[in-house]
């Protein structure tokens, strides 16, 4: 019986990851890196200041207008 497309795609990736050699080490590096970038850096060190401090574009515009025109 022919397997479904989703089944075939799943096993394409599954077999691919299982047969990786150097790739496994790289995936560990990628996952650690993404964790540091998106969880640690983004949340604790890099807030979007205008989004965090103001609730609307009007307020953000007002703040920057004040900065640039004073």
């Amino acid at each position, binding site marked *: 019986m022919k397997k479904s497309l989703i089944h075939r795609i799943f096993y394409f990736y599954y077999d691919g990851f299982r047969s990786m050699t150097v790739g496994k080490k*790289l995936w560990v590096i*990628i996952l650690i890196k993404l964790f540091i970038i998106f969880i640690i850096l983004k949340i604790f060190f890099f807030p*979007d*200041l*205008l989004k965090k401090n103001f609730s609307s574009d*009007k307020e953000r515009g007002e703040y*920057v*207008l004040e900065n*640039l*025109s004073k």
Partner: protein
Amino acid sequence: MVENIDLSLVDWSRGQFALTAIYHWIFVPLTLGLSFILAIMETIYVRTGREEWKRITKFWMTLFGVNFAIGVATGIILEFEFGTNWSNYSWFVGDIFGAPLAIEGIMAFFLESTFIAVMFFGWNKVGKKFHLTSTWLVAIGANLSALWILVANAWMQYPVGTQFNPDLARNEMMNFWDVFLSPVAVNKFIHTITSGFVLGSLFVVGVSSWFLLKKRESGMAKKSILVASIFGLVSGLMLVYSGDGSARLIARIQPVKFASLEGLYKGREGAGLLAFGILIPAKETSGRKIHEVKLKLEIPNLLSYMATGSWKAYVPGIHDLIDGNAERGIMPAQEKMKRGLVARETLAAMKESRDKGDTAAYQALKAKFYDKDFMENYFSYFGYSFLNEPGSLVPNVPLTFYSFHLMVGLGFYFLLLFFVFIVLVWFNKLDNKRILLWLAVFTIPLAYVASEAGWIVAELGRQPWVVQDLLPTVAAVSHINASSVQVTFLLFAFIFTGLLIAEIGIMIKQIKIGPKEGGK
């Protein structure tokens, strides 16, 4: 270097952005170049059916994978910095940055992320032609990702296709095609990706030379050198062509940067291009520090030609551009500062009248920002109003000068190297040329030096501007504590250095292992 950085917020923010951009750019050009070299090699495999080409392709694909994996997402940190350290800037540029970056994200995700899996996992599982198509799509996708960020960068160098909205203090895109197809964007894209192609080619030539020196994988090494050298030579010629176009644009749009590239303080007709020279600090002139070029070797009239296409044309120097030159129709910077201040005071008055509810005054002042004459004669100098003195319009001349000459000099050396390697491989005379082979190995880091130097010319050379003439660095920065930027600067230095060590370590290990299966 760190001890020389001023502890002010602006300098730390600039330093941090430079650090992350320079590290990010270590990973990007190899992805851009190697992806196309892989695609060419796999095309040869599919067309000839010879297994050795599959083996060659798979070897370079492994190295591509290492670089791609370590480098992926390092650019996102730059976007974080926009929101935190450069909030005035990120608001001011508005959707000019947002739209291209959103398109980049979608394209990169669908093209690269989908087909890169087929490229790595699909050998023997999908048809040869489908696999080849995936490899080409990864190469095209990677380079198109670069396109969008370069379009955004080009707008900062040459802001066109937009209208300033005074109510929101931000620029709004009026014509996507003006932004997308601006001459700076087109030229920058070609120049940047071809620099990546050259770097990727030098990487392949250098690594292959190492195999020849170790008397391993001779067949693979020579075939790789031939493909990479031809690709590198063709790309290098395109790089020179786009570099020439870039020089002409810079001379017109960013003349202070152009003069700084050559350490040209006093303008002249029939200006020559320095093939070599050393900058020595000289006596202050017009109240600013200047440098004199010593031991210079000049190619007559070439700078004039590069700037205008005419051998005898006048090229303004830094003094002309700052102090003005009535005879040549060059406006003094002081006048630009006055005009910029008029635009800024108009903006402040508009805001004040709006806040007070004076509708008539508000409407009249707002209308000025939609008036062609006001925009061309006053708002186009808006950024000058933030500068304390005209001398701050001059970038770091020695760094710009040396970066430019290093980039150009190395670029021509790379062309020569590709040509020599093509000839020697073609006539099968390469094996015993050990000095040349070692030279190719040590040229790999030089390719990175040239590539980074190009960005230093582009970005440091346009200081003090973040957006040319409209927003200087000092006005673009967020009002945050310098100490928080210092902490993240050190964090980034630590993380990126770790990634770079990992990249080099894994790469060297994989190179030493060499190709593993099939073929000769």
